[in-house]
C-alpha cells in the first residue's frame, strides 16, 4: 500500500486559478496536446506574473518542450487557451515581446556572429545595444567568427544573445543550460539576474531540481504531461520527498510512519519498509525513537524522475 499526498492535499498552493490573472505575462488554461495516441500535454493550466522567474521542472517526456512550443506558437493546442501578454502565441505582438531559446533552434549557416546578431536585432522596435548583448553573453571577440564554426558552448551563448537582443519582456528558455558545465551554468544565471532586475519575466525548463531551486521564484512541476505541483522551491522540495529511509522491522506495517516529522510517504514490502522524506534527518531521529527494533537502516537519495512518476501515480490513483 502506498500513501502519497494527493493533488488537493498537497501543501503547495496552486496559482493557476488566481483571480487577478488579467495582467499576467503568460496564461495557460486547460491546454491539451496529443501526438497520435500519446497525450503529450494533458489539461495544463498555469499563469506567470510579470517579473517572475518560473521553472518548468520535470523529467524527459514530461511535456515541457511541447508546452514551450505552444507558448511560442510553434505548435497549436488541441484544446484549451494560451495568452501571452493578452495576445495569441505566435501573433505579431507576442513575437515582438517574447525572446526564446529552443533546444533545437538553429542558426543561419555561413554568416558571421556579428552579422547575424545585427540582422536579428534589426527586426525589433526597441532592441538592446549590440555591445550590451555581446557583453552579457560573453561573445566578445567572436563577432567575426562564422556561426557554423562555434563550439557548443559558444553556440548556446549565441542562441541566448538572439533571444535577448530584442529586449523582450518575456524570455522563454527550453533547457538553456543542458549543454553547460557547472561554471558556465553559474555565469549564465548570473547574466539572467541582470535581466530580471529590470522587471523582465523568465520561464525556463529544466530537469534539475537544484537549478530550479537556485534560479526560480516558483516551480511548476510537470510529469507525464500534467502539472503535478506548483509553488515556491521550498514548498516543492517539501512535498516531493527526495530522500528515502529503508529499514527492516519484524513489526511490519507502516502505520504512523508517514506522519513522522520530515516524512512524506511510506511503503512496505514484507519486512522491508521504505519511508520517503523531505527531511530525512528529523525522520530518522523520530523513527529510531518510535521503532527501536528497526535494523539495516539505510538513507539514500532518490532520482527526481522516480519522484515525479510516483507523484503522478498518486494523483492518477
Amino acid at each position, binding site marked *: 500500500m502506498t500513501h502519497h499526498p494527493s493533488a488537493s492535499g498537497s501543501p503547495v498552493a496552486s496559482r493557476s486559478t488566481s483571480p487577478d490573472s488579467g495582467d499576467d505575462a503568460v496564461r495557460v488554461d486547460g491546454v491539451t496536446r496529443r501526438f497520435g495516441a500519446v497525450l503529450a500535454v494533458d489539461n495544463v493550466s498555469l499563469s506567470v506574473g510579470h517579473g517572475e522567474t518560473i521553472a518548468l521542472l520535470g523529467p524527459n517526456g514530461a511535456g515541457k518542450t511541447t508546452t514551450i512550443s505552444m507558448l511560442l506558437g510553434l505548435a497549436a493546442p488541441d484544446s484549451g487557451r494560451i495568452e501571452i501578454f493578452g495576445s495569441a502565441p505566435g501573433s505579431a505582438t507576442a*513575437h515582438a515581446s517574447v525572446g*526564446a531559446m529552443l533546444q533545437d*533552434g*538553429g542558426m*543561419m*549557416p*555561413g*554568416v558571421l556572429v556579428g*552579422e547575424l546578431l545585427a540582422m536579428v536585432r*534589426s527586426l525589433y522596435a526597441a532592441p538592446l545595444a549590440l555591445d550590451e548583448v555581446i557583453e552579457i553573453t560573453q561573445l566578445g571577440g567572436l563577432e567575426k567568427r562564422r556561426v557554423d564554426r562555434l563550439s557548443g558552448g559558444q553556440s548556446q551563448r549565441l542562441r541566448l544573445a538572439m533571444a535577448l537582443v530584442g529586449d523582450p519582456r518575456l524570455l522563454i528558455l527550453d533547457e538553456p543550460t543542458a549543454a553547460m558545465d557547472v561554471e558556465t551554468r553559474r555565469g549564465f544565471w548570473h547574466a539572467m539576474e541582470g535581466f530580471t532586475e529590470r522587471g523582465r519575466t523568465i520561464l525556463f525548463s529544466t530537469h534539475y531540481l537544484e537549478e530550479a531551486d537556485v534560479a526560480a521564484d516558483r516551480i511548476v512541476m510537470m510529469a507525464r504531461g500534467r502539472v503535478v505541483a506548483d509553488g515556491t522551491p521550498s514548498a516543492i522540495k517539501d512535498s516531493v520527498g527526495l530522500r528515502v529511509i529503508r529499514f527492516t522491522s519484524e513489526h511490519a506495517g507502516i502505520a504512523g510512519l508517514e506522519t513522522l516529522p520530515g516524512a512524506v510517504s511510506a511503503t512496505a514490502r514484507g519486512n522491508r519498509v521504505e519511508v520517503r522524506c523531505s527531511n530525512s534527518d528529523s525522520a530518522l531521529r523520530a523513527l529510531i525513537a518510535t521503532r527501536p527494533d528497526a535494523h539495516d537502516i539505510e538513507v539514500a537519495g532518490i532520482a527526481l524522475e522516480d519522484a515525479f512518476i510516483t507523484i503522478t501515480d498518486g494523483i492518477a490513483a
Partner: protein
Amino acid sequence: MLNYLGLEIRRSIRDRRYLLLVAGWPVAAYLLFSTVFGAAADRTEGLAPTVEIMVAMASFGAMGGVLMASGPRLAMDRQLGWLRQLRLTPLSPARILAARLMAAMALSLPAIVLTFIVAVLVKGVTLPLWEWPLLVLFIAAGCLPFAAIGIVVGTIADGDGAQGLTMVLYLVLAALGGLWMPVQILPSALQTVAKTLPSYHLAQLGWHIARGVAPALGDGLVLLAWFAGAALLAVAVSRRLTLRTA
C-alpha cells in the same frame, strides 16, 4: 526584412563552391557549345549560334543559380532549426518566404552577367546596346517560377534529397526545355511536353530580345502560371517549415 534579404544574399555569394557551380558551369558549356556549333549556319531561332547559345546558357545558369539557392538551402535551414528560430522573431512567415524568394532570384545574376561577358570578350558577340539590360532583366525575372519550385522542393525534401531532386529537375528542365539543344530535334511527343516547360519559355524571352523583337506575352503568361502553381503548392506545404526535425 531587407536586412534578412541582404544577409541571405551575402551568404550565397560567400559560398565559393556554389558560385563556381552556378556561374562556372554555364560559362564552360557556352565556350564548348559555341566553339563546336559556332561555325554552323544560323540555327532554328534565327540567331547567330554564338548569340543563341549565349542566351540559352545564360538562362541555364540563371535557372540553376535560382533553383540551388532556394531548394537545398531551405531544406538545410529547416533541418538545422534556423527557420524555427527565425519564426520566433517578429518577421512574419510570409516575409520570410518573400525574402528567400527574392534572395534566390538575385542569384540568377552571376551566371547571366558572366556568360554575357565571356560571350563578348571571347566570342566577339555584339548586340545593340539597349538589348543587354533588357536581356539581364527578362532572364532574371523569368526565373520567378524556379524560385517558387525551389521553395517547394526545400520544404518537402530533406538535405541530400533536396540536393538530388534539385539537380534532377535542373537537368530535365534544361534538356527538355531546349537550353542544350533545339527542341525540334526531340520526338514530337516530347516536343509537346517541352513547350509547356518554364525553361523553354525562359529561353524564348531572351531569344526574342536578342532578335530585337518584343518578348511574347504568351511566354510571360506560361512563366506566371508556373509561378502561381508552385507558389500555391509552397503555401500548402509551408506548415512543414517549422516542424521539429529532431
